[in-house]
């Protein structure tokens, strides 16, 4: 019995020591990321290159669940528990301020000075990872809302909401049974993205003095536009229950003139056998004034775990720098169709040649905007969805829904 106890104590002592001093041998760092889709060989080869360039560093990868909210739950519990068994991890764009505020992300400001990042990256992607002037993650690749249109049904991409409406009406008059404008109105995070885009398109701003502001004229106009689209028949009632895939399928089957969705749709509609292959164009979202309408910024950033010990921190920062380099971004664009957060990659000849769709996305990417960059967004997002859904479904007026949402947000922020 006594001997067992001794062994146990010795083990505990070893484990403690492991946390404090650097163990001998190579430094092993762990990277957690979502599956990139496509053959992982290219990505693994680049990690291999990193290990050759940095002798003494071993990188292990762990794949995250594909659903963003499941991954978030995992991080929430792991990081709250002080987990230090991973060093570099991919975070969704909306988590950055929240996780930073919680103290879970290492401050990367000295390794990645904000001025340098702002010069290299699209402005919105840096805005999304900055809290109180400090950098907490580095953009890896982005996602952005954009407008798809049928080149055979409308003369060109609409610049304003009025044009969107009149183009759609004209096409619908010629083709009975055709839907005008598809978007995502189901009660989920995507609904927030759609409504925020409409608010930005009406010259609105979602943050006022660092607080979420929904009870504004622009917000009423934006949400009112989406509600009116359903009420007037421009959008079918089915959008109230639709997420990305439902609308993508309807559009791909040739049953709609316009679709708001994410860049992944492009590869789908251009597949052989797609009924609308070669008949689809894309453009920034419309706006009230005709300037390119902002699309919601999505995508993934690489952060360093605040709990990982100092001797792994250096290697982790190097890995982040390596994975977010211009070369890595070109490879991600070519091999995995990931949209670069670095401005220069869009002009890279290899990208222009090998991934013309991505190169052509530059105007859309430039117009992207992050959802409210505040630690409270994740807390409030869910309640906001419920209220916006009420307006979209026609249960209450947009003004009413927005003031209810504002009340909830104020209550959360006042804590």
């Amino acid at each position: 019995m006594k001997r067992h106890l001794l062994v146990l104590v010795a083990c505990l002592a070893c484990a403690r020591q492991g946390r404090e001093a650097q163990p001998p041998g190579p430094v092993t760092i762990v990277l957690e990321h979502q599956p990139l889709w496509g053959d992982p060989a290219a990505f693994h080869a680049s990690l291999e290159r990193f290990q050759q360039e940095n002798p003494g560093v071993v990188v292990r990868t762990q794949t995250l669940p594909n659903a963003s909210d499941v991954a978030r739950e995992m991080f929430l519990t792991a990081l709250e528990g002080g987990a230090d068994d991973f060093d570099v991890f991919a975070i969704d764009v909306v988590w950055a301020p929240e996780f930073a505020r919680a103290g879970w992300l290492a401050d990367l400001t000295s390794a990645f000075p904000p001025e340098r990042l702002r010069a290299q990256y699209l402005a919105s992607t840096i805005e999304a990872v900055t809290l109180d002037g400090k950098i907490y993650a580095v953009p890896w690749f982005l996602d952005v809302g954009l407008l798809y249109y049928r080149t055979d049904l409308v003369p060109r991409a609409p610049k304003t909401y009025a044009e969107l409406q009149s183009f759609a009406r004209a096409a619908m008059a010629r083709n009975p049974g055709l839907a005008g404008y598809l978007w995502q109105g189901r009660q989920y995070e995507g609904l927030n993205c759609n409504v925020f885009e409409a608010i930005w398109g009406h010259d609105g701003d979602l943050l006022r003095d660092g607080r979420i502001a929904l009870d504004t004229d622009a917000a009423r106009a934006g949400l009112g536009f989406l509600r009116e689209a359903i009420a007037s028949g421009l959008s079918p009632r089915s959008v109230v229950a639709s997420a990305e895939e439902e609308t993508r399928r309807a559009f791909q089957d040739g049953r709609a003139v316009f679709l708001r969705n994410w860049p992944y749709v492009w590869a789908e509609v251009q597949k052989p056998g797609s009924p609308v292959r070669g008949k689809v164009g894309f453009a920034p979202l419309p706006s009230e004034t005709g300037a390119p309408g902002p699309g919601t910024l999505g995508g993934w950033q690489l952060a360093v775990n605040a709990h990982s010990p100092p001797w792994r921190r250096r290697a982790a920062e190097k890995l982040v720098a390596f994975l977010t380099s211009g070369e890595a971004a070109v490879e991600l664009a070519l091999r995995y169709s990931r949209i670069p957060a670095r401005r220069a990659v869009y002009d890279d000849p290899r990208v222009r040649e090998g991934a013309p769709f991505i190169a052509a996305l530059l105007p859309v990417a430039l117009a992207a905007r992050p959802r409210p960059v505040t630690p409270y967004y994740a807390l409030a997002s869910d309640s906001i969805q419920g209220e916006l859904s009420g307006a979209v479904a026609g249960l209450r007026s947009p003004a009413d829904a927005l003031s209810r949402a504002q009340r909830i947000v104020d209550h959360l922020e006042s804590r």
Partner: protein
Amino acid sequence: MKARSQAALLAAPAMAILAGVAVLPVLAAIWLSLHRSILVFHEERFIGIANFRFLFSDGRFWSALGTTAYFTAVAVAAELLIGLPVAMLLQRGGGFFRAAILLPWAIPTAVSARMWAWLFNADYGLLHRLLPGVDWLGSPRTALHAAILVDVWKTTPFVALILLAGLSAIPGDVVKAARVDGARPARIFFSITLPLLRPAILLALLFRSLDAFRVFDAIYVLTEGGPANATETLSIYAYKTLLRSGDFGYGSALSVATFACVLGIGLVFLRFLGRER
């Protein structure tokens, strides 16, 4: 005396495990519900019953409670009403039919809910073709009934099987005697079958009510609680508060409230069941 203490000793490991996996987590949730605990803001302090005071004035809680109660009442009633005739038919049918009818019950809920979501789809759905004009998942009024339909489809076989077991336990002699006395089938059903089936019906009601009251997966896959929170049940509200918002204190309070409701339902049914004995 010795036998009794030995019995207690033998039962102790089982009791300890039960306490570890059932009682302790419940107590922990109750303890957590008395705190303000928001992960990201590192807030963790004892606030007594403030969460429950907020709960009583929280419109979203009451609407979720109403939705859950309505879902439970309608779904369980429909399952019983359909399950009983099915069970009586199955009594005549062979093993093949008994196995075949279990199919919906055997499919994982998340899978069948996804399948139904496509059936309900307003552009492609088969149901939409059959009944044009009904906006199944898009309208707050129909969305909950669509979820009820899915639940009824899935769990009626389960109810039917329980009732079938009850039916098989009814002695054939009693029915024969009634027939000899010249009772009509309807009379036999209401005066003999139904009263003798009471324990099985109560059991089915108990199982199904407890299950339906905690419904999560089917509705979460179908609508995520939308549109406009019209299909948000207590479990979904608690899940969103706990894991999406990271508000562990209030989320635990919601879970405790759900637990209290389920416990209440369970006690009522157990009392009825106890009276049967």
